[in-house]
């Protein structure tokens, strides 16, 4: 296949990944790596390098939505980025020392988890006992709702930090945004309202990915000619997906997507085991 054929093909696959990633809330990065490795036989290290770059693009590109909506909490984001960026450095170091078979198996496991998460209903917003740490670090806030402001309190800050460290490590190890784990940390542990946690998590994903991107760059994982159609494709797909979110039949889509991701996950695991 020549570059003139390969580049549009990768762009199209990445755009579909970005579109589905935005529609389901999983993010495009988690789909693009298995698509590149399983469909086109790209080495997982090149795929991870390209995917990581696309994750930064999607996260930064989605900022347009926050200007409109004003749900994100810059303090929660910055506070938790302490944990995600340290995790991301660790993950990127681990990635350069981990055999590709193991990387594939871990990736498959994370995919299976994401697929399962994407079929779960959105958690109900409920506040728990406020954490003194949340007060000290001014994490409690409010967001616009029904014409007024709905305030919220943040709980289980230490658990959230720990989970975020794990999310950052996986992000650095696999070149993904780790959206599913971030949602667990923010929605379920810290009880941050859904809209605030998704937009804040989107903000954080770019910063987390930037922490490990430098290591990937200097190790020679970021091949410009491959990363180019992946970045432009995922960005295009996710921007379209973000606009279409309200109109789409989300339930059917979530299940279809979860099934596709589940199949890819099993293939990744099987391929990984064969390489051991």
């Amino acid at each position, binding site marked *: 296949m020549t*570059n003139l054929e390969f580049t549009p093909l990768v762009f199209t696959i990445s755009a579909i990944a970005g579109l589905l990633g935005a529609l389901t809330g999983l993010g495009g990065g988690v789909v693009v790596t298995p698509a590149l490795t399983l469909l086109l036989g790209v*080495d997982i290290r090149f795929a991870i390098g390209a995917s990581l770059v696309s994750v930064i693009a999607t996260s930064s*590109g989605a900022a347009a939505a926050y200007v409109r909506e004003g749900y994100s909490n810059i303090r929660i984001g*910055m506070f938790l980025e302490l944990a995600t960026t340290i995790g991301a450095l660790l993950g990127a170091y681990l990635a350069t020392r981990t055999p590709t078979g193991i990387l594939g198996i871990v990736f498959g496991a994370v995919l299976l988890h994401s697929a399962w998460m994407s079929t779960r209903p959105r958690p109900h917003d409920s506040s728990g006992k406020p954490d003194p740490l949340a007060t000290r670090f001014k994490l409690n806030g409010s967001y616009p709702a029904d014409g007024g402001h709905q305030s919220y309190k943040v709980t289980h800050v230490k658990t959230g930090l720990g989970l975020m460290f794990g999310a950052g490590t996986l992000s650095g190890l696999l070149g993904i945004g780790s959206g599913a784990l971030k949602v667990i940390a923010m929605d379920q542990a810290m009880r941050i309202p859904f809209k605030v946690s998704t937009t804040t998590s989107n903000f954080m994903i770019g910063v987390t990915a930037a922490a*490990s991107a430098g290591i990937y760059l200097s*190790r*020679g994982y970021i091949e410009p*000619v*491959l990363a180019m159609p992946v970045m*432009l494709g995922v960005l295009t797909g996710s921007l379209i997906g973000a606009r279409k979110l309200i109109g789409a039949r989300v339930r059917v889509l979530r299940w279809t997507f979860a099934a596709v991701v589940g199949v890819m996950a099993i293939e990744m695991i099987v391929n990984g085991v064969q390489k051991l």
Partner: protein
Amino acid sequence: MTDQRLEKIVSVLLIAGVSLSALIVLSGAICYLWQHGNESPDYHEFHAIERKYRSIQGVLGAARPSDCRGIIQLGLLLLICTPIARVAFSMAGFALERDGTYVLLTAIVLAILLYGLAAPH
């Protein structure tokens, strides 16, 4: 300066950064496909890419019209720097809010990011 205003400003910064880097990547892509469109890429076997595309100085030196991959890599490097610039900007914002705790916290995040970007690995 309030938190809401700070968030809007950093959002605009992010959009500007991602747009500019996408433009640079796109122009590098056109340039590369024009010159090397009929060559066949091979990503089946991993081999670390050339050293000049692997550091900030290298990429800044490599990006010129005769080196289209260098131009693409420059766009990608700018993309990687965009969230880092966002953190630096947030730090300035917290300083204007006179919030010492968050200036310190943001400075640590910034240091981690700069270490990842610039330290040799």
